[in-house]
């Protein structure tokens, strides 16, 4: 089918791809460029090439907000989230795959049903629950919630990987005398490494972007995360576009940076997970 491609079809495809890229990515580029323009200019209207360039937006923001504190908090929470999510997802998907119990197949899909629960509903009871256990306003507490949000999809993704590991490998390992857990770690995990990476990246993104629970559960200023800190600014800087744009760029920067490093693995993992 490739060898005799219709030239019209090819150009349509090229146009479509460019259009998609433009629609998805241009806005970010635009914001980036505009963040270097003074607010007055921005209010006046967009320009293709900025006439005046300034760093005031950034310096102003860095002066008036605890940006680096927020980044630190987000990083910690994200790290803990990954540390929680990955093992749970690995164990759960492995168990779903290898252990045969009634209702196994249903559970595979039902896992996703977790997302049906209204999160806004859970906020209130979570608040009092965490309060009772001293988890309120802690990194671990928020990380737990993020884990809860990330695990179902992570398990679904990982399931396909687990399925693709031939059982012969595990049987060989058992013949070699390894126990179940050892088999899991030494043999199965390396086989599904791309999937694990993508789960880690997924968990990372969830942790960095989560807003609702982060705003409710992290009460004190010193524990606030980036996603919430910057969001509050929106109310504060109503139309100070310059500051807002700089804020947007600064909020996006850490995640985008991390993502650009790990994107390849994430892609591979998601791709394989989609085989289901």
């Amino acid at each position, binding site marked *: *089918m490739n060898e005799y491609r*219709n030239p019209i079809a090819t150009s349509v495809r090229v146009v479509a791809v460019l259009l*998609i890229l433009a629609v998805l990515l241009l806005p970010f580029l635009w914001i980036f460029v505009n963040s270097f323009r003074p607010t007055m200019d921005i209010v006046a209207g967009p320009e293709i090439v900025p006439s005046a360039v300034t760093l005031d937006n950034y310096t102003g923001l860095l002066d008036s907000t605890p940006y680096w504190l927020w980044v630190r908090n987000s990083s910690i929470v994200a790290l803990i989230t990954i540390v929680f999510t990955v093992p749970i997802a690995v164990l759960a998907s492995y168990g779903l795959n290898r252990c045969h119990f009634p209702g196994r197949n249903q559970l595979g899909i039902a896992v996703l049903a977790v997302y049906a629960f209204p999160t806004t*509903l859970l906020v209130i009871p979570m608040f009092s629950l965490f309060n009772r256990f001293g988890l309120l306003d802690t990194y671990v507490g928020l990380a737990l919630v993020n884990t809860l949000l990330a695990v179902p999809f992570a398990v679904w993704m990982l399931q396909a990987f687990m399925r693709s590991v031939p059982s012969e490998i595990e049987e060989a390992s058992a013949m070699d005398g390894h126990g179940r857990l050892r088999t899991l770690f030494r043999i199965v995990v390396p086989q599904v490494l791309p999937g694990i990476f993508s789960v880690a990246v997924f968990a990372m993104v969830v942790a960095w972007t989560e807003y609702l629970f982060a705003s409710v559960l992290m009460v004190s200023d010193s524990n606030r995360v980036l996603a919430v800190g*910057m969001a509050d600014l929106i109310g504060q800087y109503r139309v100070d576009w310059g500051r807002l744009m700089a804020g947007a760029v600064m*909020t996006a920067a850490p995640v985008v940076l991390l993502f650009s490093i790990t994107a390849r693995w994430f892609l591979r993992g998601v791709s394989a997970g989609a085989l289901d």
Partner: protein
Amino acid sequence: MTPVVLLIIGILLVPLFDAISTSFTNLRVPGGEYETVGLEQYGTLLADPDFRSSLGRTVVWVLANGVLQVLLALIAATALNSSFRGLNIVRAWIILPWVVPVAVIAILWRWMLDATSGGINWALSGLGLIDSPIVFLGDPSNAFPTLISMNSWRFFPFLTVLLLAAMQTIPRSQFEAASMDGASALRQFRTITFAHLRPILGILGLVGTLWAANIFDLIWLTTKGGPSGRTETMPLFIYETAFSSFNFSLAAAASGIFLIVLMLIAIPLAMNARAELARGPVDGIIRAARGKGQ
């Protein structure tokens, strides 16, 4: 490993039961005094026109998002489904809207859609398509569709990547055979590509729907449910009832009804997804993937 799964279910179910039990009371704030009032809160809600319109709006929100996102994802995946240099880079970066925190999205679009200094209006009038700037988020009738579009914009690339991956596992030989059999590109898409994608479309429909239903932050940060409550979906309604009106039990009841409605939507979707999975095509895809040695 089973205990772990049970732990998760536990963390989920405990607050759920707590909330459900709260809904049968007239609790106003956590820690406050209350008495059990049975289904009174539910009754209040069902009588409340704001609640009903919010619920209806949410259903529209869910369906519109679901349909739009899946459609866009299908188109995008089809367009991207050929190996060209840089495909992997493109595939990675189209997810960008999903990767960044909501605050960024909110700022980005509020600016882009702004009536006076926004990029969209600037571009549209520059192209001569409009005479006067369109008010997007500020206009009561425009706000809701605008938000639906924004949210779809944010999530469809993620679905695209999943769909694309599934597409690329369809054995090439089936397309070659179809070519030999005289099938046009369109027919091949219909009979082979789409047929193989149905299982994953089912899953995407389910997950996409559920995720869309729970969207709170995007709407809250851009319109806070306005103008005139025209973008208030259930998550916002619940949030405001609990944290602004200080009526936790009412909010809990609203959540209960919302949950039921979601289940009504989710269960048929899930059953459909399971049925699709039980059929043949996936075996072929998995086997082919194994053959490719991943």
